């Protein structure tokens, strides 16, 4: 990945590791923990959406699956947190296999709506079942240790990032996924098995999402179908990835940081205008798609199509802002 400097990454890692030793304010730690969680959700979303080209509007459903699994196992079966968390990731992964079996045979757009319908179905299931507490949701025993959750969230997200970075940017796996995104039939002609690869990418995207959902449940201590299984998780992950830059790993991180900062400020000052938030999210996605389809990272920084490369490859890369005439 061009423009991605390993020294900078290590510096950021070290800084984030040192944060809880310097800052003891619970509120700040809480905001940072949630921000890190969103970074994890955004990069996981990008695996299937950006790299493979399949939009998963059921991202929130896998997040909720992890959260509910942990909540049910801990409260109803008295499992320890660590085991329940592993189970949460496992359930999300298995859920991805089951959901992917018929839907990943569909072409991109159909996969998108099928996963959307799936998330709605799971939400309704959680609303009507008894074990999930129905519309009242579930309450978990509180474990009040902000440092613990900070480091746990940070560890999981960092591990996810490094794993994905290795698999998608260093190993052939990422190239295979990109081949499917660019031309599925062409990829098949090269001897790749698209259905299998798509399934692997779907599981790779859902597993960390489920684990993050599990941590979220134990951390927030209250989950209900509206907040955990609603569309908002998928919508926010989508806006982060599209805004930051699809098909890269740094893009979603930038998107997550910017959008999450905006969200925090918005909810702090304008919490009575919840609906306005929906409109702003929609407008942000639409404007990003129209004016910078490569996202912030792709348009302004070192990645493909960035300003620096543009000078060298002038003529190859077309300025996205110039209106393009169709040859019809």
């Amino acid at each position, binding site marked *: 990945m061009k423009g991605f400097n390993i020294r900078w990454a290590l510096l950021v890692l070290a800084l984030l590791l040192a944060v809880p030793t310097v800052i003891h304010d619970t509120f700040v730690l809480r905001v940072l923990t949630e921000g890190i969680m969103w970074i994890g959700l955004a990069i996981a979303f990008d695996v299937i959406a950006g790299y493979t080209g399949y*939009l998963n509007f059921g991202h929130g459903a896998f997040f909720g699956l992890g959260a509910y699994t942990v909540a049910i196992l801990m409260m109803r079966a008295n499992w320890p947190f660590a085991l329940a968390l592993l189970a949460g990731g496992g359930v999300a992964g298995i859920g991805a296999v089951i959901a992917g079996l*018929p839907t990943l*045979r569909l072409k991109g757009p159909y996969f998108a709506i099928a996963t959307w319908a799936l998330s709605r179905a799971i939400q309704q299931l959680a609303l009507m079942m008894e074990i999930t507490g129905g519309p009242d949701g579930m309450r978990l025993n509180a474990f009040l240790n902000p440092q613990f959750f900070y480091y746990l969230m940070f560890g999981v997200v960092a591990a996810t990032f490094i794993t994905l970075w290795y698999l998608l940017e260093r190993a052939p796996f990422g190239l295979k996924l990109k081949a499917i995104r660019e031309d599925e039939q062409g990829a098949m002609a090269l001897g790749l098995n698209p259905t299998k690869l798509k399934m692997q990418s779907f599981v790779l995207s859902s597993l960390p999402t489920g684990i993050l959902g599990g941590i979220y449940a134990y951390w927030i201590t209250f989950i209900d179908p509206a907040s955990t299984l609603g569309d908002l998780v998928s919508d926010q992950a989508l806006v982060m990835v599209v805004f930051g830059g699809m098909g890269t790993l740094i893009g979603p991180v930038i998107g997550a940081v910017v959008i999450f900062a905006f969200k925090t400020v918005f909810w702090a000052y304008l919490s009575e205008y919840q609906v306005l938030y929906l409109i702003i999210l929609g407008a942000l996605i639409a404007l990003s798609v129209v004016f910078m389809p490569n996202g912030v990272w792709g348009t302004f920084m070192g990645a493909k199509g960035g300003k620096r490369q543009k000078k060298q490859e002038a003529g190859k890369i077309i300025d996205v802002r110039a209106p393009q005439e169709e040859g019809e």
Partner: protein
Amino acid sequence: MELLPQALIDGILLGGIYITIAIAFSLTYGVMHVIDFAVGEWIMFGAFAGYYLNKWTNLDPFILLPVVFIVFALIGYLIQPVIHRVMSGNRGNPLLMGLVFTFALGLMFQGLALTVFGFYTNSIPSMFSEGSILIERLGISVTIPTIRLAGLCYALAITAVLHYLLKKTTFGLGVRALAQHKDAAGLMGVNGKRTGAYVYAIYVGISAMTGVLIGCILSVSAQMGSQYTIFAFFVVVLAGMGYLAGVPWAALLLGMVQSIFLIYFDPGHTLLAVFAILYTILLISPRGLFGRGV
């Protein structure tokens, strides 16, 4: 068991309406290669347009249908170039971008509707709302509400018009050519950009008109949109992608499922049943009920 014939009749009457949405929806897909995530929101906006127009003018919603069609067709005609722009040019992943864009539109529309119309549920009064026809034969009694019958007549009329437009006119020939092969159609002198805009306009207009009917028969609320997006998708996938002849059957099946859930189970679980059916059929026959889709 006495309720079963009633449920089936209700299903047919309701399913008829979905035919119109699904045909327009799959037509748009065929020509523009974009799944419009905002389809449910167009229905919702149409329903609200019908609701407010009816309130202000006191005219029957059935008389207002052409007005709604013209207004929304114009809106669709104006929006389509933006979608076209998102999907053309030298961009990576035009299909994905189109999808993300219409999804964003849907999100904005829903937010707007919630802001403007609030969270209330209304329904549109019509001259057909009151009456119903009672049929009693062989010990089975079935009531047919006039409004639903009128809805079915509307659906048949729209389907007939679309059929005529597609099969008998030059415009329809162009549309079918574009659906088959975009570039080749362009070489044969079909203006893809303009035809796309017309098709999108027709589709938005029909969705909005159908929204008015749904408002008469069921209800109007700002949150109704996403359910109908899923319904439209359900019908199109079940029929088989791009296989228009399968659409009516799939739409009728959806109507049946919905009315059976309304009568026998909790109507809140309809989406669950819809998804279960979709899942099973995709697992067994990914190319739709008839195996004729793409």
